[in-house]
Each structure stands twice: as C-alpha cells, then as structure tokens.
C-alpha cells in the first residue's frame, strides 16, 4: 500500500477501512470513465461522420505491411537518425566553443559568446530551418533540406550545450578551481585542464537527453520537405488515403525511439558520477528564458533522485549554481536561499532531512545504536 502510494501518502492520512473503500470505488469509477472515453474514440474511428471506417484492415494493412517499412518508414527513420546524429555532434562542438567562450577571463570573448548563445536560444528552430533552406537552395548547396535541418538544430541545441558546459563548470565545488590556481595554473589553464573536462563528463547524460529533443525537432524538417520519418509517413498515407494510420505508426516509432533514449539518459548519471566532482544531470538545464538567472530546470531535478512523498524530489543544488546563473566569477558570493549544496551541508537548515547527509552519517549512527 505504502509502496505504490508513496507519491501522495503524505497529503492525507493513511486511509482506514472506509477510506480504502472510497478510494477503490473512485478507482473503479475513474477506470470506467477512461474506458468509456477509449470506447468513444474507437467508435469515432469506426464510424466517423461521412467518412470511411478508420479501423478497417483495408486501411491498416498498407500502413503496416513489409513494403511500407522497407520503402517508407525505415528510410525515413534513417534520414531522421542521420540528421539528428550529425546535429548532436555539431551541437556539442558549437556548445563547447561558445560555452567555454562565455567562461573565459577575456571580457570581449565572453560578451560575444554570450550574445551568440542568447540569440540562438531565442529564435524558433523552424525560422532558422526555413531561412537556411531558402538560402542554401538559392546558393545551390546539394541537398539543402538536409543541411538546413542539421544546421538549424546545431545552432539551437548548441546553445543548450553551451549552457550545460557553463552550468557544469558552475556546479563544480570551489576547491577544484582554488586548488588549480594555488598550483600556479592561470585562470584559462584551470578552466581548460581542470574544470571543463569534469563539466563535460557531468553534462554527458544531459547531452543524451538533448538527443531526444533533437530527434523530436527533426520532425520540423518535414515542413521544409526533408524526407524524414514524418514526411515519409505522409507520402505513404497520401498514396493509400490512410494518412491517419500511417501517422499513428510513425508516432509509435518516434515514441519508442525517444523513450529508449530517455531511459538511457536516466541510467547514465550514476555510472558517470565517479568521474567528476560536478553533479551529473540526466536532463539539460532549459536555457530558454534569456537572462533568466534562476534558470533551474526543476523538471530535471525532480527526476534526479528518488521521488519524495509529495511527488518529487529535493532540490539538490543551490539555484545559484545552475543554468545561466552559474558563473565561476561569483562563487564566493553564493548565498544559500533554498536547496542545498552537497559541498556545503551546513547551508541547509534542516540538515537531518538531507538524504546525502543522512547517508554520510548512517554508518556512524548505526554503530551507536548497537
């Protein structure tokens, strides 16, 4: 009972026999309502007003047979994966360049990199795609649709990676930088040799999660006639007049690939944590709001550790250490308002609640009890 109810258990008292009965009745009513909704949707599919039966095998067969897969879905999926793989490689290069640029001691490099990253963050990917597509087509680049999809995704996701690098460096404990400066390294050397390598390991899981975003965004390419999975399923659908069915199949494929990648990204942080002093994160800090200093992707934080009774998790790091706000130049001025920093457990008022703190002292307490 407590195990499957842990998300909500704290919001209400452990139900007694009467409460349990009420909950099970509500459970059945809700289940029946959802079943009715599903049946209504199926009925609409079966018998749409002045249309043909969308559930008939006549329409589903051409959307599912071997020819559909070999001639349409699989080449489409390959085009999608090809574009997203190249875009991720490019985005990492772009992100490293401008992310490190934003951390450099030279103010000119910082300002220029900052302006580029903020601009890339604010412009919708579709506008970038359309612009590059028309431009490449007019200049005469071969396969303009492919390159415009890749380049637009590189620019937008590169700005995300740039912020990941920056927050990765910001999330490192102060000691890393202090130690390297004390050893006589210059600021730039410390950044390039000590901090950035650790930040890169810390951001890898987030980069895998970003791959999901890239993969989803390649579907925008169908608007500029890139023959990706979505475009191929539309072509197949217009041949047999079963576009609803082919779109459903394409949706299932997209969901399956994205879901697998998300699971992979979630399993990575634990394995990578031993290689870095910065916390590894499965989800990128959403660098969407330009100039947003509290750019904390709390969605990511909610997924980082086990869920709490209220349906989420503690914030693990202080807001100052993340996102746009992460700056190696203000580490000493950090004020602990909420959340905690593993490196500063004393900043947390209710230290007993702190899971890592507890873990740390578990052994001690255990031996005392005995």
């Amino acid at each position, binding site marked *: 009972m407590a195990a499957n109810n842990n998300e909500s258990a704290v919001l209400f008292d452990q139900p007694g026999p009467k409460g349990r009965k009420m909950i099970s009745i509500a459970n059945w009513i809700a289940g029946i309502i959802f079943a009715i909704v599903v049946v209504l949707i199926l009925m609409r599919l079966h018998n749409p007003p002045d249309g043909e039966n969308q559930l008939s095998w006549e329409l589903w067969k051409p959307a599912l047979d071997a020819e559909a897969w070999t001639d349409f879905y699989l080449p489409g999926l390959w085009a999608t994966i090809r574009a997203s793989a190249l875009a991720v490689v490019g985005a990492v290069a772009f992100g490293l360049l401008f992310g490190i640029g934003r951390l450099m001691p030279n103010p000119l490099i910082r300002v220029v990199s900052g302006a580029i990253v903020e601009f890339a963050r*604010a412009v*919708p990917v579709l506008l970038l795609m*359309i612009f590059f597509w028309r431009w490449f087509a007019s200049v005469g680049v071969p396969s303009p649709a492919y390159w415009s999809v890749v380049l637009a995704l590189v620019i937008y996701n590169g700005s995300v990676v740039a912020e990941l690098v920056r927050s990765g460096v910001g999330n490192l404990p102060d000691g890393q930088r202090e130690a390297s400066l004390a050893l006589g390294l210059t600021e730039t050397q410390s950044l390039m040799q000590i901090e950035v390598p650790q930040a890169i390991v810390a951001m890898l899981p987030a980069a895998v999660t970003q791959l999901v975003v890239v993969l989803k965004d390649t579907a925008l390419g169908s608007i500029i006639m890139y023959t990706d999975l979505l475009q191929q399923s539309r072509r197949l659908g217009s041949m047999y007049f079963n576009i609803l069915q082919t*779109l459903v199949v394409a949706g299932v494929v*997209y969901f399956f690939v994205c*879901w697998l990648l998300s699971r992979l990204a979630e399993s990575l942080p634990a394995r990578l944590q031993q290689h870095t002093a910065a916390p590894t994160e499965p989800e990128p800090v959403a660098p969407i*709001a330009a*100039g947003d200093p509290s750019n904390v992707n709390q969605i990511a934080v*909610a997924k980082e550790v086990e869920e709490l009774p209220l349906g989420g998790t503690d914030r693990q790091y202080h807001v100052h250490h993340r996102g746009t706000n992460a700056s190696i130049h203000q580490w000493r001025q950090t004020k602990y*308002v909420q959340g905690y920093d593993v490196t500063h457990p004393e900043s947390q008022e209710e230290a007993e609640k702190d899971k890592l703190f507890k873990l740390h002292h578990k052994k001690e307490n255990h031996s005392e009890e005995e």
Partner: protein
Amino acid sequence: MQDLTLLFTEYNVPGAFLVNIELTLWSALFSMILGVILVMMRISPVASLRTVAGAYVELFKNLPLTIIMVFMVLGAYAQLKLTFSDTFTTNFFWLAVTGLSLYTAAFVCESLRSGINTVPIGQAEAARALGLSFTQSAFQIILPQTFRGSVAPLGNTFIALLKNSTVAAAASVATETSSMMSEMIEYHADLIVLIFLIFAFGYVILIIPIGLLTTYLSNKLAVRR
C-alpha cells in the same frame, strides 16, 4: 532602410506576430487548465488516475510536436471530421491551439510537479494534523505554494510555447510568422537575410521581457523558507 519600409508596407509583420501571440495565450490557458488537472491526478490517492496522468505525460513528452500538429489537421480534421468552425482559417487556428495545448500540458504538469517539491513536507503534515481532507490540503495548502515555487519552470515552458507556436505552420495556419517569412522570402529572395533578421529579432524582443518577468516573479513570489 528603403527595403525595410517596403517589406513592412507590403506585409503585415506585426499582424503575423499577433497570430503567434494569440496562439500562445490560448494554448497557455488551456494547457494550464489541463496541466493542473493532470498534476492533481498524479498526486491523488486513486491508482487509475495516477496511471492515466503518468501515461499521458510520458506519451506527449516523447512525441514530436510536428506530428501532433499534422495529426490535428490530416487525422483529426480530415479523417475524423473534428471541426471548430466553418471558416477555414478559424478552424485551423483552433486545431493548432488544441495540438499545442495537448502537447504543452504534459510539460506544465511536469513543471508543477517539480514545484510541489519546493513545498516542505511539514506543510502537508500540518494540514493533515489540522484535519484537512485531501482536496482541502491540496487546494488550500499545497497548490498555492506550488504555483509560487514553479514560476521559473512554468515561465520556461511558456517561452518554449511561444517559440513552438511557429509549428502551427504544420497545422495549415498560414498567417503566422514562419509561414509569412517563407512567403516573403519567396517574393523577395534578394532580401533574405534582412527578412530573417526582422523575424529573429521580433522573437528576441518578445522573449527577453518574458524571461526577465519570469526571473522577477520567481524571485518575488518564491516562499522564503
């Protein structure tokens, strides 16, 4: 300068941005309502509600927005005859709003769920100790603090929504910015860079104040503990 005035007299650029803003505001409203319902379902004691809300969020988080928008027009409208209005433009507009709202609601739900974490357990425990029921403690104690704690992720979600409203082009909304940019480039290919910069800076100008407002509000509304 001459080119700029030519473009602005020939095309109603602010009007295109207005369409995107309308799309964003309506979708924000509906996705907010749906998102609150979803997050309530996810923290409720009823297992079937939790399962359905979890499945909804997982489904829409892993689907490209473009396929949802295409489905709204080619599947829901063309095959299943889901219509909002007899006028084509109004109909496509509301189909796009539906698609955007369904997609964004999953992210609103996740933002709110992470906002719930900013509420200390003591608040819920105190509410229980006072004898409040689940709905009372949820609506009077937890949710108000949740909203204040999730301003930043919600702001980011709505900025993403504004940018995503350009995907309405996939749902045949021809008056919004990406379609208009495409059309302008078609007729003024020599001014392609200028046209792109007009729209790009339009979005920069729209998004920076929202970002600043989000920051301001998340600092102002955060419950200091």
